[in-house]
């Protein structure tokens, strides 16, 4: 009986786990109390536009992507557009890191009137 319950729990968890696998190569995984974000960018080069492919589990009502330089106290000069690709996957386009140094990606995930921010630092040369 106990084994049967564990199996059911794994089945219930399976869709969420699968949704956060981003096909196509290595990706970065971020976790908060509620969400897991798995994301991947193209090569990060100063002054070049790039896109971010990512998955959010469980699927939220909305998600925003941004990046900023905490030490410099400024963000990007561009506003990315996030498009849902289905199955909890998204693509954000229009990002550009216009200075070398330490940037922080911010995924702002919103559901049920609550917002959580998942962040990750990257170094750009």
């Amino acid at each position, binding site marked *: 009986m106990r084994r049967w319950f564990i199996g059911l729990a794994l089945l219930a968890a399976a869709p969420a786990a699968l949704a956060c696998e981003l096909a196509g190569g290595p990706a970065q995984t971020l976790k908060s109390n509620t969400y897991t974000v798995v994301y991947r960018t193209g090569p990060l080069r100063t002054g070049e536009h790039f896109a971010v492919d990512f998955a959010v589990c469980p699927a939220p009502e909305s998600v925003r992507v941004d990046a900023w330089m905490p030490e410099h106290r400024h963000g990007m000069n561009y506003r990315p557009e996030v498009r849902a690709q289905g199955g909890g996957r998204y693509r954000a386009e229009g990002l550009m890191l*216009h200075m070398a140094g330490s940037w922080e990606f911010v995924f702002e995930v919103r559901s049920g009137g609550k917002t959580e921010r998942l962040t990750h630092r990257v170094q750009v040369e």
Partner: protein
Amino acid sequence: MRRALLVAVLAAAQTAFAFTGAEVRAVAAHGPWPPALRPDPSNRVSGNREAIELGERLFFERRVSAGGGVSCSRCHVPELNWTDGQARAKGLALTDRNTPSILNVRLARWFGLDGAQDSLWSQGIRPILDPREMGASAAHVAKLVREDVDYACRYRKVFGTTPPASDEAVLADVAKALAAFQETLLSGRTPFDDFRDALVRGDQTGMSRYPEAAKRGLQIFIGKGSCNFCHTGPAFTNGEFHDTGIPFFIEPGRVDPGRYEGIKKLLASRFNLLGPYNDDATRATATGTRHVALEHRNFGEFKTPSLRNLALTAPYMHNGGLATLRAVVDHYSTISPDRLHSDGEAILKPLRLSEEESRDLVAFLDSLSDGGGAYRRKAFTADCR
């Protein structure tokens, strides 16, 4: 590449100046020069030889302006490194800003000190229509190209058709020919480039030819000064916009809003890359325009200039308010954070350079120039057949 950098670090360590691995990488990032060049997909005549010649003729053509007295070369003087030596440009009337050099302009992402244009060809339209610069109209320019036999002939050769009925379309094509010419204006190699390449190769002899003061100045540039935060890459600019504490009051009661107004003008322009005159059917060239963000902090921001041939382009800053390179270094050495936006970037702080450090930094900046004078004016004849 890793082995080459190791060799460079070891070789650099044997000179009077020990460049660390991080410093070698920082210096290497300012080259190679000249950079690899690509045609502009938004301009169907980019790189076209006959377009370049038409653009060159139009650049020096005073009849493009209202009244026939002012050409592009009024402010972009070849013998003055394609600027004019004045604090503020003067076409038909005095303008609000310093004339930027158009050397290496093809490498830019945004055009104009406020970035109100997103292509080199749309930038060419702005001064033609500005009442204080050339004061013309699309109809005036189209009439010149249609009625002048030589220009009409050259237009046909470049664009494969007679000038269309739309004045605006002719103006856009004229601007694309002007851009094709301006794309050919690149600065030459400099003492810095020779040093940079020698450093990357680990070539002691090559490195030793670079003045010691310039080496010290370079270390300040990429170190204590953090100048390379904004002056990045082979062209020494990140192509973006910053508030550098230069007053944006033009005169009592009148301010220059800089990038803030530039973004508004860009998005309102029919000639932007989202508009009908972009020749890039994929619109991949319009990514920056599609995503650019208008923020309050953009007020008083101006484009980071390239530092190549800097020594030949005095006076400096968006308003031409600083007469010498030493004055610019002193500005950053003593800048007051109180003069910057309270909600803006936290990049600038007074460098507090010593007298010797200031001289060294100027010596480095001087080494970014090729000496100028490469362009030779041509005697044009109306010989198109």
